[in-house]
């Protein structure tokens, strides 16, 4: 609750500060707001909250451990992304304040999605998260690719919202309430049943699958990720993904937990399709950003495994560790990609040729993030996958076998980057200069990956 208020106030202040055209004040203001919110969230999470603010309006949203833990992940990721923004937003002039403001409003939506106890708030959270992103995706107004990304994201986003809302309405028609506990007790008492209710649940699954970009509702994601400005893509691939999965899990672990007979098969099928199709398509990509888009879809497939066992002990913590590891590694990879691609004007794998000789540290950061994304032991990405797969192994052994095969496939395309950096001779005549802020973000990211690698257990006890 406190973090939500702080971020909302910061967003409004930043929006108005944008009018004053003082560029150098914008980043400290926005980053400061995010760091204060992160500090408050972490202190509430680790030391408990005595003010009672987190229980306010608890029939609408409740900042329990689950919400605070995911809030901390999203805010940490945002802080890292804001660290990149000094250089990442260098071409923006009069719209700088708007960009920071919209990103901050978007996180407010993410925090609502972590904490909702009422389906109305889920809908509002998704919209507060998405609407600023439709604008941000098109923030390079003269670039046709960015325009196309904005339109596709907008149309598919509102289409998904429509489907989600129709599902919510059908569920409401059967249960007579939007409250998660109310729906759960209607399911338990047998009041909510019949084809209309089941259709509603499946429509909600479809609507949320759009949001997490799971196959067959993923077709917008590669185009939107490629066309959006790099900073926005980094945000979409990390914070938005985390928010969508946390909301998905929260809904299915409370309201529909006793209904797995209805949605279990659907989600298992979606997960199997998502992993297989995304990983095989990623093999053929030549562009790093597009490869990362397919990689993010494949990670959605792995994360769906935890939704399948929603409510089981360990599943929530497994999602938490996985999204944290994935977000940090993705931000680091994007930091290296932005440095190389924006100075080189080329985002394909060959842009990375011989990077280990030009800047060994940059190549090392990329290698560590890629290893973590691929889930190579002993990186934290491996532990994330391990806990996720063990959580779902008992219920769906065949799906875990498929997931492990897919992880093996994914190593091939992830290693294309490493091979380009370390084993391909340098034919590019450009030089790479890393902005100072990027060094700090990469250092923080690699340190976090290192810390999590040493003690992944520290994360696993956070959600009780």
């Amino acid at each position, binding site marked *: 609750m406190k973090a939500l208020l702080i971020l909302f106030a910061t967003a409004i202040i930043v929006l108005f500060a944008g009018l004053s055209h003082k560029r150098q004040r914008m980043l400290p203001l926005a980053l400061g707001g995010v760091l204060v919110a992160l500090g408050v969230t972490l202190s509430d999470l680790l030391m408990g909250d005595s003010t009672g603010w987190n229980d306010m309006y608890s029939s609408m949203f409740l900042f329990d451990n689950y919400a605070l833990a995911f809030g901390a992940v999203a805010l940490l990721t945002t802080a890292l992304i804001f660290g990149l923004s000094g250089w990442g937003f260098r071409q923006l002039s009069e719209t700088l304040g708007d960009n920071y403001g919209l990103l901050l409003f978007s996180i407010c939506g993410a925090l609502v999605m972590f904490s909702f106890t009422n389906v*109305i708030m889920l*809908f*509002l959270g998704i*919209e507060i998260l998405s*609407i600023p992103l*439709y*604008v941000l995706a*098109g923030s390079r*107004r*003269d670039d*046709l*690719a960015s*325009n*196309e*990304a*904005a*339109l*596709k994201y*907008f*149309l598919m986003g*509102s*289409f998904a*919202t*429509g*489907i989600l*809302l*129709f599902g*919510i*309405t*059908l569920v*409401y*028609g059967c249960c*007579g*309430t*939007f409250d998660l506990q109310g729906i759960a007790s209607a399911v338990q008492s047998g009041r909510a049943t019949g084809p*209309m209710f089941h259709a509603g649940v499946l429509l909600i699954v479809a609507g949320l699958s759009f949001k997490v970009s799971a196959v067959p509702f993923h077709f917008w994601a*590669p*185009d939107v990720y*490629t*066309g959006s400005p790099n900073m926005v893509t980094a945000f979409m691939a990390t914070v938005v993904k985390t928010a969508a999965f946390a909301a998905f899990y929260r809904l299915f672990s409370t309201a529909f937990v006793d209904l797995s007979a209805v949605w279990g098969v659907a989600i298992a099928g979606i997960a199997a399709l998502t992993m297989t199709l995304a990983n095989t398509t990623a093999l053929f990509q030549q562009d790093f950003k*597009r490869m990362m888009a397919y990689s993010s879809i494949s990670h959605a497939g792995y994360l769906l495994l935890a939704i399948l066992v929603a409510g089981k002990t360990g599943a929530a913590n497994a999602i938490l560790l996985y999204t944290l590891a994935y977000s940090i590694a993705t931000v680091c990879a994007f930091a290296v990609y932005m440095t190389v691609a924006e100075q080189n004007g080329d985002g394909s794998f060959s842009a990375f040729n011989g990077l280990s000789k030009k800047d060994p540290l940059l190549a090392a950061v990329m290698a560590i993030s890629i290893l973590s994304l691929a889930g190579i032991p002993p990186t934290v990405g491996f532990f994330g996958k391990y806990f996720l797969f063990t959580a779902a192994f008992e219920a769906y052994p065949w799906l875990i076998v498929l997931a492990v095969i897919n992880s093996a496939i994914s190593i091939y395309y992830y290693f294309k980057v490493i091979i380009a950096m370390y084993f391909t001779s340098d034919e590019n005549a450009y030089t790479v200069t890393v902005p100072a802020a990027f060094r700090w973000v990469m250092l923080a990211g690699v340190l976090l990956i290192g810390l999590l690698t040493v003690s992944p257990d520290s994360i696993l006890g956070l959600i009780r």
Partner: protein
Amino acid sequence: MLEAVPIEYFLYLCTLLFVIGVFGVLTRRNAIVVLMCIELMLNAVNLLLAAFSTYLSDAQGQILVFFIMVVAAAEAAVGLGILVMIYRNTKSTDISLLDQLRN
């Protein structure tokens, strides 16, 4: 008066409107028509929510209707803004022109 109409009729009508909207989104090529079809989907939901709300004698459904109307207005504003931006660059609202990203 309203109770005289069975709730199933509302369900069929709204499902029909919703399916028309979905069909329009998937087949039409003009971005403005697609936007209108999305509005049709949302309004089908609104009508069904209002019907359920009356049928269940529960005000929550009507509250969500208000929220959906506000969000739909915000979405329409952003969507039309994006369309104006695209029209300035391409002089067209045909979404099939926008396939640069699909290699």
